[in-house]
């Protein structure tokens, strides 16, 4: 599989996802599942192809992590649709996925076969994949928050129930990702936590979602504040994921630069 083929796989997948989103508005759930899953299959075929041709998991560069993010977003969307029949979620997840696909088309990054020894570990794939799935879940939760705050301007118990569930699953995977990273760091670098800038921002992000969780328990009626906490948390998450490369603190000595 070569990167040049990405545009075609992406086009096919996005067309499927968009059709799925369209049929969600029409209430044709069988077609929603069929199209969304077909899109996921097409997209995953490309990831798998890259994995085989690179002879390593495609998780090294920023572009490669965006690939997984674009894949997991519609997956999160179809899970929410399956459980709550929320008809607009697939439109949102498709658009957001498309944004990340476009970023990848404009800024493909380098996809060489080389994988430095520090990354050659059984922890590599679970650490990054779990994180990307978590980011997609928390991204979907943020889509909910944006929708409730700025479009609907009100929130029912069911709306917040969906948001909460997305955050619980997202936070669980965020914890897995962080702790897998810690266990891996012990094997690779000698210590499980070194307050490397990436680790510091991972801790910040994790704490932010803990604030959300506790706040929802304490003040279930104040959904607006809860949604704003989610927006703030997502900013921290993005800093952790890629924004960190633009911070002065990371340039000095981050071990997470690849």
């Amino acid at each position, binding site marked *: 599989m070569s990167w040049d083929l990405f545009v075609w796989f992406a086009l096919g997948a996005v067309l499927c996802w968009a059709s799925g989103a369209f049929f969600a508005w029409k209430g044709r759930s069988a077609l929603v599942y069929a199209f969304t899953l077909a899109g996921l299959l097409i997209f995953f075929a490309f990831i798998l192809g890259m994995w085989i041709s690179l002879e390593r998991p495609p998780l090294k560069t920023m572009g490669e992590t965006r690939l997984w993010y674009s894949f997991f977003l519609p997956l999160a969307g179809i899970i929410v649709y399956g459980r709550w029949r929320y008809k607009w979620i697939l439109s949102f997840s498709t658009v957001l996925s498309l944004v990340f696909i476009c970023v990848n088309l404009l800024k493909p990054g380098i996809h060489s076969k080389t994988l430095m*020894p520090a990354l050659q570990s059984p922890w590599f794939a679970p650490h990054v994949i779990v994180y990307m799935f978590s980011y997609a879940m928390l991204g979907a939760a943020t889509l909910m928050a944006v929708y409730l705050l700025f479009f609907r301007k009100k929130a029912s118990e069911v709306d917040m129930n969906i948001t909460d569930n997305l955050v619980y699953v997202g936070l669980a*995977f965020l*914890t897995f990702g962080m702790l897998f990273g810690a266990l891996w760091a012990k094997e690779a*670098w000698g210590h499980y936590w070194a307050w490397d800038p990436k680790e510091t921002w991972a*801790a*910040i992000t994790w704490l932010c979602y803990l*604030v959300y969780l506790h706040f929802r328990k304490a003040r279930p009626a104040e959904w607006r504040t809860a949604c704003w906490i989610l927006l703030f948390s997502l900013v921290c998450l993005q800093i952790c994921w890629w924004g960190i490369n633009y*911070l002065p603190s990371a340039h000095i000595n981050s071990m997470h630069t690849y």
Partner: protein
Amino acid sequence: MWKKPWNLKEGFLVGGGLLVAGLLLQVTIGPINWDLFAAPVNYVMLALLLALVGAMYLLRRKVYAFEWMMHFQAAIPCLCYAVGLTILMGLTPQTRQGGIPWLSQMLQFWPFVLIWTWMMVIAGLATLNHLLRWKWREIPFIINHLGVFLAVTCATLGSADLKQLEMTVHGDSPEWRAVDEAGNGQEPGLAIELHRFIMDVYEDGSPKRFASDITVYTEDGKSVSGTVDVNKPLKVNGWKIYQYDYDARRGPESEYSVFMLVRDPWLPAVYLGIFLMLAGAACLMFFMAPKTKKV
């Protein structure tokens, strides 16, 4: 304000008080010197922390603040302060010394440490509260809070006993001298003999694998032979030996290999905390998430 029940506002004030107290300590005593916490001091500190949490729990009916501290109303402001201070840390380049006063050595900054300690006290109290009023369905809650308490507390107190030494071994003779992070000479009580430095490169010359065939001799007369790879350390007498570096200018022809020797007596306690947190995260998803409400 300060009328019972206390709420978030009181929590933010208590946190603010801790910040002020921390700043005063920073100005008067100076940054925290974690070396002073080396064993047995850290064991005593852990015992004191546990005693403090226990005493606060027992006095909860007498002192309202302790009762309040077991609940969300205290946890939320505390977490917010922790987020704020940790963001400061994330924005400031962290250095061993120099840089921006106070902020560049955040781990030694009193307000940061006090807020995180407060967080651990709250987590400890919440754990104890649920442990002693046992209900089976609260197990996920206990696992999560106990896990965080153990992992963070033991990682912090244990850091004083953590040894990370660098040892450069040449091919011609065994080496027993190492240097610590501050550059001081240390003798870890074992010697390493380098038999062969192994290196594979990709087509573009970037390293694919670097490793060392070594024999480790210990003071008690043992000798252990093996290959140390990146991501595959060798364990000898409580030390973990990591492949760390080599002569980058000579690459595969490097005549020496650099190892990192790590000893962390508190690791099992931290790992127990980490495994509890992993189990807790699974619980979060399967048991703690609110039940699905249908549209």
